[in-house]
C-alpha cells in the first residue's frame, strides 16, 4: 500500500496541484493512461467544485489522500465546506437539455461517471468523498 497526501487551500482552481498529485499516484500504481485520466478528471472536478461552490472562492482546507491497493487506486477528498453529497446530484435533466441550453454544471456528472466506485459521507463536520478506479481497466 502506498499513501500520498496533499493539502490545498481551496482558493481558485486547484487543477494544477491535483494533476501532479494524481499523476504521482497513477505512476506509483502503474495505472493505464485511460484509468489515470479518469481518476484525475474525477479528482479535479470534485476539488474544483469544493473550491468554487463549497467554499465559494473564499478558500478553505481540502485534504487529498491517495492509496494504492492491490485491486484499486483510491483518492479520499475531505473538506470543511457545508455538507454536500455529490451522489444526490441528478445529472439527467442537464444532460438531456444539452450543453447549448445549459452551459455549466457538468463537473459532478463527469466525476460520478469517471470512476469505478464513488462514495460520500459527512463525518466529524467534514465532507468525505472517496473515488476508486480499478488498476486494470474493465472493458478497456
Amino acid at each position: 500500500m502506498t499513501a500520498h497526501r496533499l493539502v490545498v487551500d481551496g482558493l481558485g482552481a486547484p487543477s494544477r496541484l491535483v494533476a501532479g498529485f494524481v499523476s504521482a499516484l497513477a505512476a506509483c500504481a502503474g495505472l493505464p493512461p485511460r484509468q489515470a485520466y479518469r481518476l484525475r478528471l474525477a479528482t479535479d472536478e470534485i476539488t474544483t467544485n469544493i473550491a468554487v461552490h463549497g467554499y465559494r472562492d473564499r478558500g478553505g482546507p481540502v485534504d487529498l489522500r491517495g492509496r494504492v491497493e492491490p485491486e484499486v487506486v483510491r483518492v479520499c477528498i475531505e473538506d470543511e465546506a457545508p455538507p454536500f453529497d455529490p451522489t444526490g446530484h441528478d445529472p439527467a435533466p442537464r444532460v438531456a437539455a444539452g450543453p447549448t441550453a445549459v452551459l455549466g454544471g457538468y463537473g459532478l456528472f463527469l466525476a460520478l461517471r469517471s470512476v469505478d466506485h464513488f462514495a460520500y459521507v459527512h463525518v466529524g463536520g467534514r465532507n468525505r468523498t472517496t473515488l476508486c478506479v480499478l488498476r486494470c481497466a474493465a472493458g478497456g
Partner: protein
Amino acid sequence: MRIERSTRGTVLVVALRGELDGAVASEVHDELDGLVAGGGGGVALDLGGMTYVSSAGLRFLLLVHHHARRRGVRLALAGVRPDVHEVMAATGFIDAFVVADSVDDAVEALVR
C-alpha cells in the same frame, strides 16, 4: 497550454497543445477568443495535441463556439484524442461542433 496559429487557404488553423483545465481556460480565453474572432474564412481548432480537458475546459470551448457563431465564424474541431472525445461525447458537447478526424478534413468541411 500552447496556442499555435497557421493558415490553410482562407481557413485559420489554431492548434491547442497541452491541458485545458479550469486554471488554463481562464488564462487563454482572451487570446483564443481574439484569434477566432478574426477567422472570417472559418477556424479549424486542432485538438490533436490537447491531452486533457475538464468540464471547465469544455465550457470554455463552448463559449468560444458561441462567440464564433455570433460573429458568423464557422468553427470545426480536428483530431480530438480518444480520452478527450469521450468526455465531450458523454456531456453532449461534441454534438455542438463540426468534428473532423484531421486538420485537412476540418479545412475541407469549412470551405465546402
